[in-house]
């Protein structure tokens, strides 16, 4: 048997082969020719690409504007900006927002009776309280002593907040009463001369009772916005 080169065999048998197509094949060609081209023209592609580029550019511009235009400057100093809420009748605990300033206090050598004040409400002797640098409202108490005592009370309240101790009406009243007694003693001392300390204390106490309380509360309202005291 003769041997044939495979490639020659393939070229001979398959090279010129004809296979009749099915009937209706020309109709399929003419239909396919008549069908509109699925290709999108170049101009349309370019316009779509331009639209995308515009959208992306607008998005980038808006996002960069939001970053720079609306950025608030960092807060370097906490200033008491707003007055605290009106005193409500509900007994509420003091909100735990911390005071953002350092408070200095020059300790006074005051002898006080710790009768109504529990140990955890005692005034801290080395507490440092400095008055705020913000403007003082015109209706603040003129008496330096009252101001000082008010600030001490505020510091104590803040301390209680920091250590998560409850700050209730009773605690505040207790602190106010203690401060009143101390003010009364100071005034009694300044009047000079040996006097009946208790009688004088009682007289002075009564006199300053209401005014101190009001002044202290007014101070709290005006200067310590983070402390909201509910008093009856």
């Amino acid at each position: 048997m003769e041997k044939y080169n495979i490639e020659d065999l393939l070229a001979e048998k398959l090279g010129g082969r004809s296979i009749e197509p099915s009937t209706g094949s020309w109709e399929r060609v003419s239909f396919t020719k008549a069908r509109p081209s699925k290709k999108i023209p170049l101009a349309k592609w370019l316009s779509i690409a331009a639209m995308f580029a515009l959208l992306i550019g607008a998005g980038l511009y808006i996002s960069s504007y939001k970053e720079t235009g609306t950025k608030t400057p960092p807060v370097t100093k906490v200033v008491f900006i707003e007055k605290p809420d009106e005193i409500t009748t509900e007994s509420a605990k003091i909100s735990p927002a911390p005071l953002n300033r350092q408070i200095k206090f020059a300790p006074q050598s005051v002898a006080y009776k710790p009768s109504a004040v529990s140990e955890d409400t005692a005034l801290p002797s080395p507490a440092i309280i400095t008055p705020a640098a913000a403007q003082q409202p015109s209706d603040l108490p003129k008496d330096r002593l009252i101001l000082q005592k008010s600030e001490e009370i505020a510091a104590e309240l803040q301390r209680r907040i920091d250590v998560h101790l409850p700050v209730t009406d009773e605690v505040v009243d207790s602190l106010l009463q203690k401060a009143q007694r101390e003010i009364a003693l100071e005034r009694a001392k300044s009047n000079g001369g040996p006097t009946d300390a208790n009688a004088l204390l009682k007289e002075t106490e009564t006199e300053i009772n209401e005014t101190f309380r009001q002044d202290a509360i007014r101070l709290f309202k005006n200067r310590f916005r983070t402390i909201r005291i509910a008093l009856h």
Partner: protein
Amino acid sequence: MKIITLHVSDEKLIKQAIQKSGKAEEMLYKRYAAKMLGVCRCYIKDMHYAEDVMIEGFTKAFASLGRYRFEGSFEGWLRRIMVRGAIDFLRSRREIAFAEVEEAIGYAEQATAPDMDAELLQLLMDELPAGYRTVLVLFAVEGYNHKEIADMLNITESTSKSQLFKARKTLREQLEKLNNSSYGKV
């Protein structure tokens, strides 16, 4: 009265077809459709898919008829379109996969099948992997060299050569098996 249809040259038909003459296009189609289907069938096992590729090829040919420069035969120009269409079809179905194999020294395989029917030979070709078959047909039937085959199939020349070697070897084995089963051992 006898009507004798004069043979119209391809050039005339093409020029008329460029002018969007449907009749000229139909005549061109009827003149070359059978051969082009034979070309597509060499690459694609299924006849229906082969016809689809052929129809798609004619559609592309008529759309780009203006680019035909009347250099070389119109049949050769059409064949190239059909071959590209068939390869694209096989790629789209991921039937063509080429693994990089070591280069094999090519030599002509000898077969003992002089009376082999074209259809039977096609059936044996269909048994080959699509990659082997494609390279073999491009080389043996269409007459492309390995560089052209590598460019068309996006493979290296060495891959083309090794695919051809394996295709020949496999086809030879099939032919010998067929001969042995038909005629008994020689």
